[in-house]
């Protein structure tokens, strides 16, 4: 029973933090409903949704966590779809990042390379894939330090304690400092991010509306601006 | 030979730590009025008072007070201290450091007494022990003799059915000791209960003790009048 007074509660993956700064007001301007966002690790959010967390919309950083909550009956399988595809970058604190390739990470000047934990962070798994594909994994793995999510991973490099970080483009774009280079998209499995409308929140209808908004031109434009690839679009140039 | 209202103590027991052991085995009859318990250091005086008060458990025997059984090994009767109505002035005094003198004494006043009256009574007892002026002060600032008197007031205020005093005047000068023992005797006259007084002071024993028991190494050595038992007083 959706109440119009209830805000639309969104659980969103960490790489969406910055995009939502813009998505929220854009959506609210059109729909006169309030949106509140809880940013977190998709894995933890999925577990909470399974336990009845009152979210109307779940935007994960991959597809499997959404599969999980749908299977558990906490979200509506009919609404599940990919809303964006994340892109991997190598980020360094200095200004010389634009020309970096993944191969460069083998150089000894990269004493510490930060990636998100590949065990559970989608960008981490992609980073490992890319390093493996480049034949560097065994060489570099000694120098890897794991962050729990992309944001923390970036923090390690931003504070100068890691010499490079492999993170999402969305994050790199939001940094006032540093420079980055895209990682070849053929070198890792696509980071498809799925969403689903969930049932334990008080405003399922609002969740649906927001999901639609993300798929509409205005929403897509914002996601694109923050570095995501969109379903049905070819690999585009980086803005 | 104990009167109906007296305190009869027939117990054995021991105190032990990993490194020591002390056994006692006594038969004592304390009649209403003053009874002096006399004995060298370490003979078990404090131990026996604690056993009567229920702070130490005897191993066998029986303790009765005015016909009421406080402890009986055979029938597994062992009243907790708060049900015995036996007040004990500790050798170490054991004043409550977080309560002022009047609160210390009030702690002893029976809960059956109306709240408003409790403080009255506490102050009354402090006055009788010549420490009325300490009412609002905390024990840390009491002199040795002052503390002793507050402890006495607290015990008396609890309206006990038996009163056990472990060297209650040891830190008092002679005049004061005499005044207070007079107060004590007056109190016993009005509320006839057995009072057991542990003391090393022969003069005091003579003055107070019609009945003296001599303890040695956890056993009763003799009992009788002060004249009989402690003749060699100066």
């Amino acid at each position, binding site marked *: 029973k959706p109440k119009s007074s209830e*805000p639309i*509660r969104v659980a969103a993956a*960490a790489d969406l*933090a*910055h995009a939502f*700064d813009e998505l929220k007001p854009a959506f609210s301007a059109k729909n006169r409903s309030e949106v*509140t*966002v*809880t*940013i*977190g690790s998709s894995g*933890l959010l999925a*577990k*909470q949704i399974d*336990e*009845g*967390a*009152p979210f109307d919309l779940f935007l994960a950083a991959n597809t499997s966590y959404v599969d999980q909550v749908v299977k558990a009956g906490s979200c509506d399988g009919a609404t599940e779809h990919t809303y964006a595809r994340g892109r991997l970058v190598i980020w360094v604190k200095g200004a010389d990042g634009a020309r970096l390739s993944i191969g460069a990470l083998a150089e000894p000047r990269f004493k510490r390379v930060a990636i998100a934990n590949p065990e559970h962070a989608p960008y981490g798994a992609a980073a490992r894939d890319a390093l493996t594909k480049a034949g560097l994994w065994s060489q570099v793995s000694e120098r890897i330090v794991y962050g729990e*999510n992309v*944001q923390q991973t970036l*923090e390690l490099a931003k504070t100068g304690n890691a010499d490079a970080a492999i993170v999402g483009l969305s*994050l790199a774009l*939001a*940094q006032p400092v540093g420079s980055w280079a895209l990682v070849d998209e053929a070198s890792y499995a696509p980071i498809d991010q799925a969403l689903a409308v969930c049932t334990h929140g008080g405003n399922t209808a609002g969740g649906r509306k927001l999901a639609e908004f993300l798929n509409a031109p205005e929403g897509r434009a914002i996601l694109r601006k923050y570095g995501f690839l969109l379903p049905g679009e070819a690999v585009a140039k980086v803005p | 030979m104990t009167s109906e209202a007296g305190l009869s103590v027939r117990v054995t027991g021991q105190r032990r730590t990993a490194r020591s052991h002390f056994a006692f085995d006594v038969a004592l009859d304390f009649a209403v009025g003053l009874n002096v318990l006399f004995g060298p250091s370490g003979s078990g005086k404090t131990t026996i008072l604690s056993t009567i*008060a*229920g*702070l130490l458990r005897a191993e066998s025997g029986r303790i009765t007070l005015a016909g009421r059984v406080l402890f009986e090994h055979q029938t597994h009767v062992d009243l*907790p*201290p*708060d049900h*015995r*109505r*036996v*007040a*004990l002035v*500790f050798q*170490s005094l*054991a004043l*409550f*450091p*977080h309560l002022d003198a009047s609160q210390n004494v009030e*702690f*002893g006043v*029976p*809960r059956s007494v109306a709240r408003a009256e409790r403080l009255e009574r506490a102050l009354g007892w402090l006055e009788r022990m010549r420490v009325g002026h300490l009412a609002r002060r*905390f024990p*840390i600032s009491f002199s040795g003799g002052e503390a002793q008197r507050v402890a006495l007031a*607290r*015990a008396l205020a*609890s309206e006990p059915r038996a009163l056990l005093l472990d060297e209650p005047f040891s830190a008092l000068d002679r005049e004061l000791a005499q005044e207070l023992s007079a107060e004590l005797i007056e109190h016993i006259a009005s509320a006839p209960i057995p009072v057991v007084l542990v003391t090393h002071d022969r003069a005091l024993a003579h003055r107070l003790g019609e009945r003296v028991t001599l303890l040695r190494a956890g056993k009763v050595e003799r009992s009788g009048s002060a004249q009989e038992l402690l003749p060699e007083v100066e």
Partner: protein
Amino acid sequence: MIDLEPLALSFEVAIVATAIASALGVALAGVLTLPRLIGREVIDSAITAPMVLPPTVLGYYLLVALGRESAIGHLFEALFGTPIVFSRGGAVVAATIGALPLITKASRAALESVDARLVDAARTLGASSLRGFLRVSLPLARRGIFAGVMLGFARALGDFGVTLMVAGNIPGRTRTASLAIYDAVLAGRDADATRLSLIMTALAIAVLVVAAHLTRSRSDDI
């Protein structure tokens, strides 16, 4: 402008949780000093044990235990009509669990350090063991208990992982200052995070200092 709502919520939750944990912790500590208790150290350690788990994981287990599909969760929802998880109640539970071992262990040590002769004296004056505990042991153990309570309060105020899982990080409802600071970091609002951290730390110090002075002036009298 900085959003002060999470701060207010944090203090609200921490105060309630500290009150609950204090009552519970002191009572538990009292039980742990009972002379004939069996398994004393095991019980004590079991109360401390949750501290060794990563808070988010502890929170996850709690979420499952208190969740809407658990027996406790069902009971609570039946009684109060609203689930305990993802609510302020959940945040209070989380903070309470963080504070409890600190208060219990500090109180127990303080209670055990009280001179047994004073409790004995209380008993001979007619006090039941409960009255002896309340009127003699407790006030004499106050320093240690108070130290535990202050630690518990700080811990409750700072709880992150357990709150995150059990209460969720729901803006306006369960977003405590701790969560808001973390959020700011995640969103790259580093300045906000630092500002909120500083306010939080300063407020906590102020509360702790005032509390210490309030409790101390009482005992200075003595």
